[in-house]
């Protein structure tokens, strides 16, 4: 029970109150180490809490348990090999990461991407958003004690993963969106499978809402919990559903459209309440909007090429490779050496399910990136944690943590 000094380094600031005046009436704090194996920190996040009773007086996140050096690994791989690393950054929204990397590299290459590839990318990005929000909703409800939601959400997620598997051969590590277009042409019957899923999906969202929204315990646990002012969030670099739940209508899909998002009609759902419940409502509404975008993309899908007309970047198809000398040379060059990207630097941001994800890429004109910096939404959002958790109950901390929707792979990279 006595306050023990914390021995790890990042905690130096936390143990500062050790010099507090010898005031016998001052509350005695208990230090609780939550994580990295704690079931509710969603991965390997460690939070050091100072508790007064069950109230958190100070919270300090300790990240880095999932650090895999992805940014550095990008520098020793060729441009097209680095795509596979972006999958592993945020393993719940891998296609968003593929997309932002591809967009950044294409900016450097100044490639023109055919409409069909762009629309397919939008479709996949929105399916990814639904996928990620489903995982979030399931685990968040599980934290608050509603076990069954988890399985219902994963039922739909399984369908989405099957769709991903149909196009890319992989359920999670898709690497399907690549600089220059798509990895493969979507198989026959894929659009029908997507149409079937997306037609049934809104009713599933209604089902989730009926299970949770009609429940007074759920509302009591989420309403008015996890408040953090919009100013604080903007100062700390929080993006995504968190700030939209506070009423700020900020979405890169609208403000800086990419991959022909400007051709789709959709709303940016916002809520004013700025609590866990508002974030939950925002995400549910986003799932519905994403479903609308997918339907639009399916119905208006243009035909034509699914890869850019850039033989020096895009692998030629087998037929050409076996019959044309030039195609064979390009194939050999791309596979052995990789394509060269003109020297320069580029910053590309998109709206991932978690918020603003941006890659800052520097090229020195060789076939490998000079630097790939990732501005990931989980990292930005997690910075708000000390402010968010201050003076809340432990039980609320679980709800508040869940509402941030961070992925530790995305944070640590």
């Amino acid at each position: 029970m006595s306050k023990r000094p914390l021995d790890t380094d990042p905690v130096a600031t936390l143990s500062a109150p050790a010099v507090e005046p010898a005031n016998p009436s001052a509350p005695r704090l208990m230090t609780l180490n939550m994580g990295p194996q704690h079931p509710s920190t969603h991965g390997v996040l460690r939070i050091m809490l100072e508790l007064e009773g069950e109230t958190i007086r100070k919270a300090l996140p300790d990240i880095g348990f999932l650090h895999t050096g992805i940014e550095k690994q990008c520098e020793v791989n060729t441009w097209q090999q680095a795509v596979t690393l972006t999958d592993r950054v945020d393993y719940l929204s891998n296609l968003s990461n593929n997309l932002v990397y591809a967009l950044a590299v294409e900016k450097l290459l100044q490639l023109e991407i055919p409409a069909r590839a762009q629309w397919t990318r939008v479709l996949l990005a929105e399916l990814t958003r639904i996928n990620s929000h489903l995982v979030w909703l399931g685990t968040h409800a599980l934290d608050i004690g509603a076990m069954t939601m988890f399985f219902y959400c994963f039922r739909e997620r399984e369908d989405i993963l099957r769709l991903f598997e149909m196009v890319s051969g992989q359920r999670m590590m898709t690497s399907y969106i690549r600089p220059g277009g798509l990895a493969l042409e979507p198989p026959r019957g894929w659009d029908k499978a997507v149409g079937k899923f997306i037609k049934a999906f809104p009713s599933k969202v209604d089902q989730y809402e009926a299970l949770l929204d009609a429940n007074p315990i759920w509302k009591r646990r989420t309403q008015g919990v996890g408040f953090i002012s919009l100013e604080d969030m903007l100062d700390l670099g929080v993006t995504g559903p968190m700030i939209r739940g506070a009423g700020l209508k900020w979405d890169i899909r609208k403000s800086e459209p990419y991959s022909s998002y400007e051709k789709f009609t959709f709303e940016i759902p916002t809520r004013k309440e700025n609590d866990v419940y508002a974030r939950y409502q925002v995400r549910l509404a986003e799932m519905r909007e994403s479903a609308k975008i997918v339907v639009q993309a399916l119905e208006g899908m243009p035909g034509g090429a699914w890869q850019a007309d850039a033989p020096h970047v895009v692998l030629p198809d087998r037929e050409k490779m076996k019959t044309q000398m030039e195609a064979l040379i390009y194939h050999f060059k791309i596979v052995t050496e990789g394509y060269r990207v003109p020297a320069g630097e580029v910053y590309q941001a998109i709206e991932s399910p978690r918020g603003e994800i941006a890659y800052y890429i520097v090229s020195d004109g060789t076939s490998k990136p000079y630097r790939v910096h990732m501005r990931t939404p989980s990292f930005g959002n997690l910075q708000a944690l000390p402010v968010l958790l201050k003076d809340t109950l432990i039980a609320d901390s679980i709800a508040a943590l869940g509402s941030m929707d961070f992925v530790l792979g995305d944070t640590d990279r």
Partner: protein
Amino acid sequence: MNFLILSLIKAAVVAFVLMTTLAYLQWIERKVIAHIQLRVGPRRVGPHGLLQPLADVIKLLTKEDMLPSHVNKPFYFLAPFIAVFFALIAISVIPFGTEITIGPVKTAMQLTDLNIGVLFILGLSGMGVYGVALAGWASNNKYALLGGLRSSAQMISYELPMAMAIAAPLLMLNTLSFRQLVDAQGGYFFGFIPRWTVFQGPFPQVVSFILFMIAAFAETNRVPFDLPEAENELVAGFHTEYSSMKFASFFMAEYANMVTVSCVATLLFLGGWQPPFPEQYGAKFVPSLIFALGALLCFYHGFNPARPFDKITLPVVGVVFLGVAAAFVAPVISTILMPLFWFAAKVGIILFLYIWVRATLPRFRYDQLMRFAWTFMFPVAVVNLFVTGLLVALS
């Protein structure tokens, strides 16, 4: 001497049945929750996972018994014993059926007919807090301590509305012995409405039944009041530091409490083993009918098997069901089985409710739960008790 032997036999039977019930209650819970959650539940050990409880028991018995170095040893060992002792002993005053005669012996289906049975149960449930509180304290673990504190506070808070909810039907029936309570609930109004406490005049005890059930969920630490062991916040709450059989003791205590509370609810409010409608409307044939229907269903699925081995297992189960159905219409056995059936059916429905709620509801927050106890449950219980007392005095 005769009394001693009889008591020993009865104790052996009750203990065996109770232990089996606890083990299979857990199997049923896992199966029901699994089906609610789009899963299939235990399937590997035995047909439809029916031997899973046995496997669990063997696993827990043979598992290494960890003794953390930082615990307060005497209390650490004492806590699971206290929890399981007070949970299991409560069954001794619960009657399961009417008096029966086997040959020369005439006995009640009950271990002991204590004339203050209801008070005894209340006292035991109060003692059960010690197990949890001591476990949390002796573990010297922060999560366990928080869990233990929460649990003690919660159990003490909900004991009050629970006791008041129990007091209201006692006022009406004017006895503290479970056997007399059930006898007082026999018979029917207008020939078809059972005189159970929930329906009985002058003041049907619906409110106290609901209050009692809510308090019972809280007493037994079940969802939505399972804060002491809220696994997402406090790892495993008060039993974080316990492993193997000591953990199993807490587990068993929780399920034993569930069974006890369901039995008490049945005896106090739902008329114990009194059938829900009179015999002239065919109450005698309901059990046979249910088991016969079950047998038919088994035969149907046995002949249209979904899985290859269903061809063998389901008809066997069907034959067993038919045998049970026949036993319920057999002359001598049926008089013993009939009250048991109605009692078990009512307890079973309440236990199913527990499981259903667990799969459906999220969990309260600690302060919300305490506020709910003191600002809603307690006043309602007081008013209910007052109104009941007034109406009983006037009538």
